[in-house]
């Protein structure tokens, strides 16, 4: 007799089993259907593009678990074991069903290999799950929560696997087939069960295992386990139908499909919390919680039966204030396994708060008013905007006859903040030294609208955008260099169909370097470290240009911080946080400054006016090593150029 398995050995009431199976599958389908219904109901019409690429990305991400492993090796391997264990057992079960009802093929060698794979699957799942429990409950990895379902679901898995092994053991103990060695775990357990007892126990084991599995199928869609479907969906949609920048025409509260799917796909892994600078500074905010809150909102407002989750339904409260913590630094998106942007969820909520008006914090309220009246968030007057340039022989493009190759868009903070003005001074000096023909817009320069856009004041943003575009058109401006990565990002990404090219100054400097217009004679013997501004690096992938420029200075040593490039830590000034009065245990800028100091560098280089003032502020407040300096890239370059 070739190797095989007797199906439904000793089992009575098989009809009951089929009935329960049908119910479980029905529950599963109803749940899955509800999710899809809510996604559809919540989102605007979607247009899919790049489906092939998206599917490809989804499959590779799922099969290899690469994103999980890259972000956190231990967690990635753990998930790999669970995923493949579960996947093997799931496929195995399907194969058994096919074998029973379609055509019998699990015999002989095929059956033996099947048995081995099932043993491996079971062990892998069990090891993965236990590892997960250890991480969560013994190692107490900080980013992990310990809510009811976080214990219930893994234990359920453990019971499913164990009951499966015992069931197998009992079968093998009773029948002792000669191929039992292939089922190495089951066989080992068989050795523990007396043959007589095994035959008696088998039906009970069988039912326990069957009920656990059917129960599990029933709850998948009603728990975080639903991520086995929604995570792939989220990965797919994040790429096939990416979240669009919200536009003023959008009805407030309406989601993009990728967002709706993401909210359901978030399995509370907390990777975003570990990356978030706000959470890291001990502030009362965690992107995961915000996403979960958004998920709850989505269900409560769209689903007649309220939240679909069985556990952890309603305990994410108090987002009123928390929405203002996010600096929109994009760190969360960088690590989220399902490519979710918590800051977009935040933006949606801010938009609603701004339209409603009552939830806008005082300082922000005043800042937006000021921005509207005076085109800047700092001073209640436009007059001093170009004051920094007085006596510097810089062309004012709004004056008759001034035509230049490049318009230097100074930006509000650089124009008005005493410390940041030095960026304008040093950058224009470098432009003059390198013979660039440039001009500024003087006191007519408007705010680009970045702050308005990030805090959800889209109407004001549109107005600022129109002001800028009109001015650029009026003076025939086609080439723009900005001081601030924020202006750069806004002009380059939030101004569709523009007739100009906007660049950040680092890109201009890199070009000057390439064209050999910028060169340094004397070595500068210093060690520096470079802080990637979020809107230059993560948002626009400008990582190398500033580094190339820095490295061009002879004698200088550039060292990297623990978090650099796409992992850079936010200074805490973006996303409107500059105009907020929110506090945590520490300041984000201080956390960052410590990293900079730990590199042993003498100078921390930034390329953003907000970073500059935040870090300078932190330096003064925290008291760094004697002689440690915070400088803008331009200031450093000028020092190197003037070093004769």
């Amino acid at each position, binding site marked *: 007799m070739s190797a095989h398995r007797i199906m439904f050995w000793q089992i009575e009431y098989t009809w009951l089993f089929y009935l329960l199976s049908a119910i479980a599958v029905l529950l599963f389908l109803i749940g899955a259907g509800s999710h899809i219904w809510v996604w559809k109901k919540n989102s605007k019409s979607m247009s899919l593009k790049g489906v092939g690429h998206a599917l490809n990305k989804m499959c590779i991400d799922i099969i290899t678990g690469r994103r999980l492993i890259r972000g956190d090796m231990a967690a990635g391997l753990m998930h790999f074991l669970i995923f493949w264990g579960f996947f093997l057992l799931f496929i195995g079960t399907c194969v058994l069903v096919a074998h029973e009802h379609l055509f019998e093929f699990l015999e002989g060698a095929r059956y033996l290999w099947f048995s081995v794979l099932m043993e491996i699957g079971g062990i892998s799942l069990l090891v993965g799950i236990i590892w997960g429990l250890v991480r969560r409950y013994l190692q107490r990895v900080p980013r992990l929560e310990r809510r009811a379902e976080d214990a219930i679901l893994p234990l359920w898995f453990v019971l499913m696997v164990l009951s499966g092994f015992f069931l197998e053991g009992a079968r093998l103990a009773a029948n002792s087939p000669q191929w039992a060695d292939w089922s190495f775990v089951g066989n080992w357990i068989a050795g523990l069960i007396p043959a007589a007892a095994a035959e008696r126990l088998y039906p009970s084991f069988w039912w326990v295992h069957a009920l656990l599995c059917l129960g599990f199928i029933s709850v998948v869609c009603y728990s975080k386990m639903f991520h086995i479907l929604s995570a792939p969906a989220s990965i797919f949609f994040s790429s096939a139908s990416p979240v669009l920048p919200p536009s*003023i025409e959008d009805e407030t509260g309406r989601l993009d499909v990728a967002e709706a799917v993401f909210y359901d796909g978030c399995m509370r892994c907390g990777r975003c919390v570990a990356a978030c600078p706000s959470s890291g500074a001990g502030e009362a905010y965690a992107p995961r919680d915000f996403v979960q809150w958004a998920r709850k909102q989505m269900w409560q407002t769209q689903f007649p039966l309220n939240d679909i989750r069985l556990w952890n339904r309603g305990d994410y409260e108090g987002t009123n204030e928390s929405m203002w913590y996010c600096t929109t630094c994009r760190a969360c998106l960088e690590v989220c396994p399902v490519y979710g942007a918590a800051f977009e969820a935040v933006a949606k909520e801010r938009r609603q708060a*701004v*339209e*409603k*008006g*009552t939830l*806008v914090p*005082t300082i*922000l*309220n*005043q800042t*937006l*008013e*000021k921005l*509207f*009246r005076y085109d800047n968030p700092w*001073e*209640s*007057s436009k*007059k*001093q905007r170009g004051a920094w340039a007085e006596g510097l022989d810089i062309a004012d493009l709004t004056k008759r006859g001034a035509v230049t190759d490049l318009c230097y868009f100074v930006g509000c903070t650089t124009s008005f903040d005493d410390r940041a003005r030095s960026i304008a001074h040093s950058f224009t000096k470098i432009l003059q030294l390198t013979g660039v023909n440039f001009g500024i817009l003087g006191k007519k320069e408007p705010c680009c609208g970045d702050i308005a856009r990030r805090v959800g*004041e*889209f*109407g*004001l943003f*549109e*107005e600022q955008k129109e002001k800028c575009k009109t001015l650029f058109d009026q003076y025939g401006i086609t080439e723009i260099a900005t001081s601030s990565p924020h202006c750069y990002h806004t002009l380059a990404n939030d101004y569709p169909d523009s007739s100009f090219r906007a660049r950040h100054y680092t890109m201009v400097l890199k070009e000057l370097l390439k064209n050999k217009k910028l060169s340094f004679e004397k070595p500068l013997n210093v060690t520096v470290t470079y802080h990637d501004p979020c809107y230059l690096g993560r948002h626009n992938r400008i990582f190398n240009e500033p580094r190339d420029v820095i490295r061009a200075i002879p004698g200088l040593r550039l060292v990297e911080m623990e978090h650099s490039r796409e992992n850079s830590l936010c200074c805490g000034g973006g996303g409107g946080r500059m105009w907020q009065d929110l506090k945590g245990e520490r300041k984000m800028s201080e956390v960052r400054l410590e990293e900079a100091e730990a590199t042993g560098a003498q100078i921390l280089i930034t390329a953003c006016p907000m970073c500059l003032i935040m870090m300078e502020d932190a330096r003064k407040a925290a008291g760094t090593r004697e002689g440690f300096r915070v400088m803008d890239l331009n200031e450093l370059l000028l020092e190197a150029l003037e070093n004769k």
Partner: protein
Amino acid sequence: MTELNIIICVKQIPDPEAPLSDVSIDAENLEVVVDAPQVISPFDENALEAAIQLKEELDGKVTVLSMGKKLSDSVLRKALAAGADELILLEDNGFEKLDSHSTATVLAAAIKKIGSFDLVLAGRQAGDWDSGQVGLILGEMLGLPCISLAREITVEDGSVIVKKTVPEGYERVKAKLPALITVSNEVGELRYISRTRMLKMMRGGDIPAWTAEEIGVSDDAIEKMNIASLTTPPDMTRDCQFLEGSPDQQAAALVDVFVSLR
């Protein structure tokens, strides 16, 4: 109680936040010239917020009155965008630089024309002349109980209960409706009015404007402010005067400054 009918008086002024450098003085015409956009006077905005919150809580109607020679729709419609139901402009060539008494006269006439109301609110003082009189005079003219410096207002059973600032802290007082209340900044800042909301309001219907004649205010019932002179404070430009010498000499010079400022 049935619905609450609130009338609130707001003043349009040049932005009081404007920096010193944008303020100049026209001594001849006795005018302070501020090179800044017009806004609703800050305490009036506080009063508006209080009125809207009351309306949201109890239902009712908020009517906004504003008096001036030339008023700007785009500034005052903010009150509608914030949630007021009606805006009435009191516009007349004669309504320029009126003294507090006359301003109250005009407002009282308009309020009588409107007829019924439960509460009249005003800011504690205007951000330009800082006089702090109109609200209370108005209360007297209308024969209402007057409550000043309110920082919290609640209405129940035909009475209003107000937390008003007093030297020791605050006092809770109760008065029968109708009543007049002048509002202080503690009631909270006016909610943010998004540009979208504002623009929607700008496209709204016409705003009624009543002239002196229409509210029955005759020329001799109102008087202009009696200004004898208007001057720049000596320190307008803030040219810093450096006190020189040894620390002791500097200290002595500074003490002289203190004495002169006393």
